[in-house]
């Protein structure tokens, strides 16, 4: 319990620090005057000061910070600086399910691919299976997601759309609540595209860990005990090898949900958090940037907390610390 409370406290602290940094970068960067951007090119000084007042830019920084946080978290009516009138919180709430659907679905696939590939490669070390899996893995890692995405689109939406892939729906997103079948169908290729990259990494990491583990003394003990190779691999070597995979998973999941799946989102026309962050950065739209960054920070911190918990489950030696 204390552990959870501690994690929660540190998560809040991290988010607070991040919000301050973002806020300061935005307002304290010389030459960046949000009022000038808002007022448009060549606005007169009167208009500028009007804008400044209307948005509260003439107040001291701490007050402005508190106001922004109040609008973001308490009244939840923070509005965009660019598309006047657009509320920020609903925008996030709309984009988040898209990203979550994309990333969580892909995560399940890449975990299956990665673990399966790593275990298979270790099991068949010395035969051709191992190098084949590893080459596929490295290829998957080296191909950029947007390129794979574009190629997939080219094939499924264009070249073979009339024949083999006639069942593939057009790009875009259908909410799960609206039609689960269409939701899955729309996300199928985005999932596979994203999962390919991460599955490749995970398979390679796991194989390296497993191969090290299979050379450990306790594996020799297992053989001397008369255990089957299968049992040694699954029960003894695998468990310790999962730790690095789990920590990698935490980092990846946090950053992807936080918006790092941008390229995949753009390529497949999915209006997710990545897309939203990208657009707001283009417009220097502070309220949206702020909301996106805090949202991302939340997931990164949360994912790390979960990783720490999983660590303790996997490895009893961590529990004491």
């Amino acid at each position, binding site marked *: 319990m204390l552990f959870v409370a501690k994690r929660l406290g540190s998560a809040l602290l991290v988010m607070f620090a991040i919000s301050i940094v973002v806020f300061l970068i935005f307002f304290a960067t010389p030459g960046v005057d949000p009022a000038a951007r808002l007022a448009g090119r060549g606005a007169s000084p009167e208009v500028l000061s009007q804008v400044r007042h209307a948005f509260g830019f003439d107040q001291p920084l701490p007050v402005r910070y508190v106001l922004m946080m109040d609008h973001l978290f308490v009244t939840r009516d923070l509005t965009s600086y660019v598309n006047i009138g657009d509320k920020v919180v609903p925008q996030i709430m709309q984009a988040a399910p898209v990203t979550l659907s994309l990333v969580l679905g892909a995560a399940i696939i890449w975990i299956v691919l990665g673990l399966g590939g790593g275990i298979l490669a270790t099991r068949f070390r010395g035969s051709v299976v191992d190098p084949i899996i590893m080459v596929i893995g490295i290829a998957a890692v080296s191909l950029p997601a947007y390129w794979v995405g574009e190629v997939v689109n080219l094939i499924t939406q264009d070249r073979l759309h009339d024949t083999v892939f006639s069942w593939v729906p057009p790009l875009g997103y259908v909410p799960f609540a609206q039609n689960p079948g269409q939701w899955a169908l729309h996300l199928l290729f985005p999932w596979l595209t994203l999962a390919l990259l991460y599955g490749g990494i995970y398979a390679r990491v796991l194989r390296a860990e497993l191969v090290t583990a299979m050379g450990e003394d*306790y594996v*020799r003990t297992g*053989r001397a005990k008369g255990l089957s190779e299968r049992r040694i691999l699954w029960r003894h070597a695998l468990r310790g090898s999962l730790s690095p995979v789990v920590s990698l998973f935490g980092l990846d999941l946090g950053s992807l949900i936080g918006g790092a799946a941008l390229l995949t989102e753009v390529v497949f026309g999915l209006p997710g958090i990545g897309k939203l962050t990208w657009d707001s950065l283009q417009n220097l739209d502070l309220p949206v940037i702020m909301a996106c960054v805090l949202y991302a920070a939340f997931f990164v911190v949360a994912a790390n907390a979960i990783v720490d918990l999983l660590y303790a489950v996997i490895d009893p030696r961590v529990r004491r610390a």
Partner: protein
Amino acid sequence: MTAAPLLEVDDLRVAFRTRDGVVNAVNGLSFTVGRGEVLGIVGESGSGKSMAMYSMMGLLDNPNATVAGSALFEGTELIGMPLPKLNRLRGSSIAMIFQDPMTALTPVYTVGWQIVEQIRTHEKVSSQAAWKRAVELLDEVGIPDAARRAKAYPHEFSGGMRQRVMIAMSLACHPSLLIADEPTTALDVTTQRQILELIRDLQAKYGSSVIMITHDMGVISEIADRVIVMYAGRAVELGGKSQVVRSPRHPYTWGLLGAIPRPGQRGRRLATIPGLPPGPHDDQTGCPFRSRCRFAMDECSEMPPLRATGDAAGHLDACWLPGDTRESLREEIA
């Protein structure tokens, strides 16, 4: 001695293919282990003593290793035995304990779990019954508060206690042969004493045979009935413990014994063996010790057979020196 020996090893060879040619890690090793006997194998690192045991047990997973020769355990050939069949022997009839108790247990499972796994691999018993036996075993090897400690993880034990856990696990299925590979080398001297006493007590109680691999002549003296001295993959001397330790016949054994600093003999210059053991790529014909031997002769370019050169029965050595000159020659280098 009418009963057949428990283990009969004949001309065991382990070779590794390397980039620079074939390396013979074990080069024609033959010996027997009787029922209830403790055989000590002593040698320095690289002498092939562990390698010989691992090859017999199918524990060499180097794809470049080839094992030849024969090892009959209760009349069954171990070399080349298919893995499923070997797995039925390993851990039940033949058990092993290893040098480093810190790493020999899987860190993520409780010691009780690991002993239960050992029992249930070879016997059809309920997990409750196996757990009960695991606790009894831990208690028997001297782990205080065994019922509670069975639920502890390896890192929560000291080195000596972990070695006790290993011993408990190895005894779980009442093996007729226990192979102990430097079981006390990583331990402090007072802990080593405890573990040696434990192995001796358990060996007496259950009548298992033991092969004790060590580099320490003192350990051999404490525990072994018979001794094999290994050098560069070969047995250079074989005999009863007292024969080998008190009246060694091979010049290498002389050097090995003379090099040990013994309490109560301080200030005396230690006898050393000049040079280094032959590397894997050195010439492998003839007596492997001849490059370091003070008494090397022309005959030594041919490998001497392991045979009796003195009067004592069962005391064999592989050296061309005339049998009756050995004692005076040993005086010479002391």
